[in-house]
């Protein structure tokens, strides 16, 4: 699947205008929800985060997430990321464990 990013320009906040621009939302699905005990969280006033910084912050808070990192893909604003990414306030970031639909 193509993994281009649609919203926003480099270095600019993306997402909805207003206060939403200041919040980075993180979504957890399937068994990752059990690991974190929640479906989503918000990081207000987060600085831009590179992919490794995001994982560092997540695994500091939930060390048990670390074992899932290898198999987990990231999506930003509904599109898969390619690996190295910079996440901005206003982005919706999803941790996508291996899928099993159908």
């Amino acid at each position, binding site marked *: 699947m193509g993994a281009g990013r649609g919203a926003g320009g480099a270095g600019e906040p993306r997402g909805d205008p207003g206060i939403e621009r200041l919040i980075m939302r993180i979504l957890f699905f399937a068994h990752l929800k059990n690991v974190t005990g929640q479906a989503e969280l918000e990081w207000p006033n987060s600085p831009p985060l590179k992919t490794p910084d995001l994982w560092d912050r997540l695994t500091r808070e939930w060390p048990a997430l670390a074992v899932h990192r290898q198999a987990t893909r990231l999506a930003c604003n509904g599109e898969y990321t390619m690996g190295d990414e910079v996440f901005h306030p206003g982005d919706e970031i999803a941790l996508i464990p291996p899928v099993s639909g*159908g």
Partner: protein
Amino acid sequence: MRVEVQLTAEPIVPCRLIEPDHAGRAGACVEFTGVVRGEEKEQRIAALEYEAYPDMARRVMQALLARLGQRHRCLSARVIHRVGIIPVGEAAIWLGITASHRREAFALLAEFMDQLKQEVPIWKTRSIPFEAQRPHQS
């Protein structure tokens, strides 16, 4: 190719393939229904629970069908994926494809199902054991 994608928490009712092809171009109408089996990991089950990241799941399915439609020239594709608790024997997914010839329709269907299981953010999150569905006995 005309594409329609739907996520629903309601039972999937087998439906007509998109719309009648009044132009008479369709020579093949292919349907696939993915049904919840009564066994999961060698355990008898009553139902499976599915979860989706809805907006992204719809978007990825749309993009996937559009991409596959470039390679396999079909006329239309319609997908309905159910989420929530789905009892054994009921449909988790229904896919209907029309094409001028059967070969393209079968090819698109097979590739879509393979790709769906790799790309589309939908998960089987829980098996509900058969015993859990029995009335409680005191």
